[in-house]
C-alpha cells in the first residue's frame, strides 16, 4: 500500500469527507420529513430506517390492494380469544353499548365516541388482506369509518406526527405516522363481511391499517392519542411490539 499517490490520497480524503457530511445531511433531512422510525436505535436500526424511509417515500399515497367480493375467504381465521379482563366482559355482556373510543392528545376537541356514533358517520368498506407476520393470510370485507374522518371531528393540531392507539387488553398498543393515520384505507373498523366485527377478529372495534402486517391492526381499540413525541409512550420505542422484540414498522 506504499505507492498511493498524493492525488489518490487527496481524492480519497475529499470523498470520505463528502460521504460523512452527506450521511449527516441525509439523517437531518430524513428526520425532518419523518423518515426515521422510533426503533431506529440498536443493531438493527440501520435496516429498519432504510426499510421505513424507502417504503414511506415509495408508498405515501399508494393504496393497499383491494380484491373482488369473490375472493373473500370463506372462513376468515378468527385467531383471537376474547380479552379475559373484567372491563371487556362487562362491556360484552351489555352488547358493547357502553364501548367508548376516547380520542385525546394534540386535538382541539377531545371526545369519546360510542359505537352507535361511529356507525352514524359515513361508512366505508374495503376488501383487503390481513397478512400475519408468521406467513398466513386471509381476505375479508372491512366496514368502518376512515380514521381521517374521526381525526377531522376532533381537530388535529398541525404539529402532530403520530397517532397512538390502545387496546382494552393491557400492554397492547401501537402507533402509526400521520401518512398512515390520514390514509383513506385506515379504518376504525366495526364490521366485517356485511356483519358486526366478531370478537375473534378484534370486535367490536379494530383499527385496520391494511398496508402493514396484521399486528399493526390492534384489536379491541378503546383509546387514540394524537402526539408529536412517541418518546412519551412506554419505553419510547413507538409501540409495545419493539419492547417485545418486533419492529415498529410492519410494511414488510
Amino acid at each position, binding site marked *: 500500500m506504499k505507492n498511493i499517490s498524493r492525488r489518490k490520497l487527496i481524492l480519497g480524503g475529499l470523498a470520505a469527507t463528502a460521504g460523512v457530511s452527506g450521511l449527516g445531511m441525509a439523517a437531518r433531512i430524513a428526520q425532518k420529513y419523518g423518515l426515521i422510525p422510533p426503533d431506529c436505535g440498536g443493531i438493527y436500526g440501520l435496516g429498519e430506517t432504510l426499510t421505513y424511509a424507502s417504503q414511506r417515500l415509495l408508498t405515501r399515497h399508494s393504496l393497499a*390492494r383491494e380484491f373482488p367480493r369473490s375472493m373473500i375467504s370463506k372462513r376468515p381465521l378468527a385467531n383471537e380469544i376474547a380479552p379475559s379482563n373484567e372491563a371487556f366482559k362487562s362491556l360484552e355482556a351489555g352488547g358493547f353499548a357502553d364501548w367508548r373510543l376516547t380520542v385525546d392528545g394534540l386535538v382541539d376537541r377531545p371526545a369519546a365516541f360510542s359505537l352507535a356514533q361511529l356507525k352514524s358517520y359515513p361508512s366505508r368498506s374495503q376488501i383487503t388482506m390481513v397478512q400475519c407476520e*408468521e406467513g398466513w393470510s386471509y381476505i375479508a370485507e372491512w366496514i368502518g369509518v376512515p380514521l381521517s374522518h374521526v381525526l377531522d371531528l376532533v381537530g388535529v393540531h398541525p404539529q402532530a406526527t403520530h397517532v397512538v392507539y390502545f387496546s382494552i387488553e393491557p400492554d397492547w398498543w401501537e402507533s402509526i405516522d400521520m401518512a398512515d393515520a390520514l390514509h383513506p384505507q385506515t379504518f376504525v373498523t366495526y364490521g366485517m363481511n356485511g356483519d358486526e366485527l366478531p370478537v375473534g377478529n378484534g370486535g367490536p372495534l379494530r383499527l385496520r391499517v391494511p398496508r*402493514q*402486517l396484521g399486528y399493526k391492526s390492534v384489536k379491541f381499540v378503546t383509546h387514540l392519542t394524537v402526539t408529536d413525541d412517541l418518546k412519551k409512550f412506554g419505553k419510547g420505542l413507538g409501540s409495545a*411490539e419493539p419492547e417485545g422484540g418486533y419492529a415498529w414498522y410492519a*410494511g*414488510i
Partner: protein
Amino acid sequence: MPLGAAVPNATLDVPAAALPARHAALVRVTHWITTLCFLALLVSGAEIVISHPRFYWGETGNVLTTPLFKLPIPSSRALVPTGYGYVLPDQNGWSRYLHFQAAWVVVLTGLLYAISGSFTGHFRKSLLPRRADLSWRALSTSMASHLRFERPSEAEAWSYNVLQRLSYLFVIFVLFPLVIWTGLAMSPSFVSAFPASVTVLGGQQSARTIHFFVSLALLLFLVVHVVMICVAGFRSRMRPMITGRGGTHRAGTQMERT
C-alpha cells in the same frame, strides 16, 4: 509435505509484481459480505418459516385452508397443527429485524458488485463462458469430470471452468434477483405501490412459496460451492478469495517471497 516445498523456487518465471490478483479486491470484499448476509438470511429465514411451516398457492392461505405442502417440523406457534406435542419458542422478532437488515446490506453490496462488474469487464472476462466451451462436447466433458470429482487442472486455479461460469451467472442474475423480487412481493406496503409485482407471481402466498424454493436453490448452490472448494483444494481456493494472491503452490511461494 506441503505442496509448495515440492517446487523449487528456480522454476518460477514470473516476477512477483507481474502476477495479477486472482480476485480483485472489490470481488473479494463483496463475496465475503454476501456470504455473511446469506448466512444471516438463511438462519433468520428458517426461524420465520418455523412460525408457519405450511405453504400455499394463490393469494391467501392459513390453517383453515388446504396447504400446497407442509414441512414435517414443529412450529413456534400453537395455532399451527403440526402433530408435535410442543411449541418452539418464538424467534420472529429478531429474525425479521435481522432478515431485513441483512437483505439491505446484501442488496446494496450486490448493486455495487453488479455495477462495478459491468464497468470493469468482470462479467465478460471472468463469468461469460467462451463460445467454444458452450458446445455439447465441451459441456459434457466438463460435467463428466465434475461427476468423477476430479481435481481441477492447474489452469483452473486462474480461471473459472464453463460449469462454474454458468452456475455463478445463474446465481447472480437469476436466483438473487428472483429471491429479492419474491421477498418484496410479500410486503403489503411494497405491493400497494407496485401491485403487478405480486399478481404476476400468482398472489402473495405464491410469492412466499417461490421465495422458499429459490432460497432452497441458493442453499443447494452454497453446499455444492463449498464441496467443490474442498475437492479443488481448500487452501488453494480460499487464499485467493481472502488475499487476492493466486492460490496454487507457485503463487503461494511467490507470496511468501514478497
